[in-house]
């Protein structure tokens, strides 16, 4: 007997990514210049290689984070030296077709952001590879929605390497969190703790873990920290809500122009909300969004699949709004089933009148009267937010 049939079924339905040789490694395998950025700097010459693009990028402008709105992005003036020498680090802001702003950190040569051919990048060819402003796909991305005033706030803190910031899966060597046994380990000496983000126009100074300080850029309030210290912690984080700093972050304090300051979060104390941040508006529509829901349920092992279709009452044109399929069993004997047991957001743009299909799963042990609802909500709203599109009930038999 299978104990977790829902897990087995989900695994069978999943589409594993095809394992392929990292694109970076295949670009310039014949370079033969396996030297570090520091050594390159010593020669005074940085040979250029072909541009590199991560393999896992969003291609659909209407889905997920979307794609860049232009092909250059905005390279900020901020430059931070690498502890090992070589070209400085820089930061680029990329606006996307779904209204998000994404950050990219890398090494800068001239006015180009890119990666050095080391630490498993581009066959360790020692060249500089410009990086186009692609947006990475996936759940954890250094991208953020604007606040109510159209400003962006984000905080990222992660383990990276001297090559510049890349997805661990793109490297031909193994980062501590990568379990691919076919890869050699990435050089420990090239590990870097990097922290970067946008604090808004009110921030005047950032203090980092090593006691150093930085004046954020005007307007965006961008900061960037690169250190060879603190790399024993592999955990990385991206502020999926606007925060001034993450627990354990390299950012320790933020000073604001009005004389106030914020001490970054610890494991016990939450982070301050960045000064100037205004919560995006919730959905407040006076007109009814009610639509008829068509629901199909099917039993599959110990779970019940819920498939809901409806006509979109309003269009979705960016990542700031979504339809959500929620399920709860309010009269279940198990109190866990009375809360939300099914939560499925739409993740793409829609025209008004488009047929929306959302599919969720409910364990059969949550038997009783399943209450299914579809709401239209701002993405930043909590689970219980949003405006009702439709609701109905179905019996889940034991």
């Amino acid at each position: 007997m299978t104990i977790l049939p829902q897990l087995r079924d989900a695994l069978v339905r999943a589409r594993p990514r095809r394992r392929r040789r990292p694109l970076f490694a295949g670009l310039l395998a014949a370079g033969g210049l396996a030297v570090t950025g520091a050594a390159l700097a010593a020669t005074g010459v940085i040979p250029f290689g072909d541009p590199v693009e991560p393999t896992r990028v969003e291609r659909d402008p209407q889905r997920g984070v979307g794609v860049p709105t232009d092909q250059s992005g905005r390279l900020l003036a901020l430059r931070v030296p690498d502890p090992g020498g070589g070209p400085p680090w820089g930061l680029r802001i990329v606006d996307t077709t779904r209204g998000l702003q994404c950050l990219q950190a890398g090494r800068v040569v001239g006015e180009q952001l890119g990666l050095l051919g080391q630490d498993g990048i581009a066959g360790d060819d020692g060249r500089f590879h410009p990086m186009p402003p692609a947006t990475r796909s996936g759940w954890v991305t250094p991208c953020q929605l604007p606040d109510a005033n159209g400003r962006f706030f984000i905080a990222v803190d992660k383990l990276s390497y001297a090559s510049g910031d890349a997805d661990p899966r793109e490297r031909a060597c193994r980062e501590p969190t990568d379990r691919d046994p076919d890869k050699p380990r990435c050089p420990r000496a090239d590990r870097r703790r990097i922290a970067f983000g946008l604090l808004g126009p009110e921030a005047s100074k950032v203090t980092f873990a090593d006691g150093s300080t930085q004046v954020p850029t005007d307007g965006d309030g961008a900061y960037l920290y690169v250190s060879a210290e603190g790399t024993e912690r592999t955990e990385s984080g991206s502020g999926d809500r606007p925060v001034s700093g993450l627990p354990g972050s390299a950012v320790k304090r933020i000073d604001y122009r009005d004389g106030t300051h914020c001490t970054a979060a610890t494991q016990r104390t939450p982070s301050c909300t960045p000064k100037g941040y205004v919560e995006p508006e919730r959905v407040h529509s006076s007109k009814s969004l009610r639509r008829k829901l068509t629901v199909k349920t099917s039993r599959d092992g110990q779970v019940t699949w819920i498939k809901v279709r409806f006509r979109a009452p309003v269009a979705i044109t960016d990542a700031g709004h979504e339809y959500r399929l929620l399920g709860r069993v309010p009269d279940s004997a198990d109190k866990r089933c009375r809360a939300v047991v099914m939560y499925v957001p739409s993740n793409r743009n829609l025209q008004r009148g488009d047929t929306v299909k959302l599919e969720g799963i409910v364990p059969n042990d949550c038997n009783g009267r399943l209450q299914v609802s579809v709401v239209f909500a701002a993405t930043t709203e909590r689970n219980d937010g949003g405006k009702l599109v439709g609701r109905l009930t179905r019996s889940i038999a034991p």
Partner: protein
Amino acid sequence: MDRSDEELLAACGRDRAAFGVFYERHERAVLGFFGAVTRRPELAADLTAETFAAALEGAASFDASRGMARMWLFGIARNVLSGSARRGRVETAARRRIGLETLVLAPSQVELIESLVAEEGDAIVEAWLAELPEHEAGALRARVLDERGYAEIARDLRVSEAVVRKRVSRGLGRLRRRLSQETP
């Protein structure tokens, strides 16, 4: 005839049901292992989901010449456990990459996992064995899990009894060192 684990892993690129069979074959051992280590059914289920998601991702690169699929799977399980212990939370990277939803456990499933813990104690040893060289793991498995005598093992492996004793001793030494370093 039932397909071997290795055949199932090799097939799951084109036949996704094959991974379902592989999952069913090893679910209890992996769940039991995590249940015994964590004593929390929900946590055990979470770790199990991440382990199988990582296994599904890596199935195409599984190399049968390097060892048995079960050992390989428990190697992944051990890495998921130690990685999660280091981070202070269950890893989710593999599940995110293949788009697996968060697992919702029914009360009956929680009870089943609890009951497994008592039954699958050997799975813990198997998981740690996955870290050892194959010759040491084989000797330890025969001696500790199968409770066979040194002379019998020596006959099967076609080595002297002294060699078997040495392999068991070295294997136990490695296990002790690892357990003292990494048990959460």
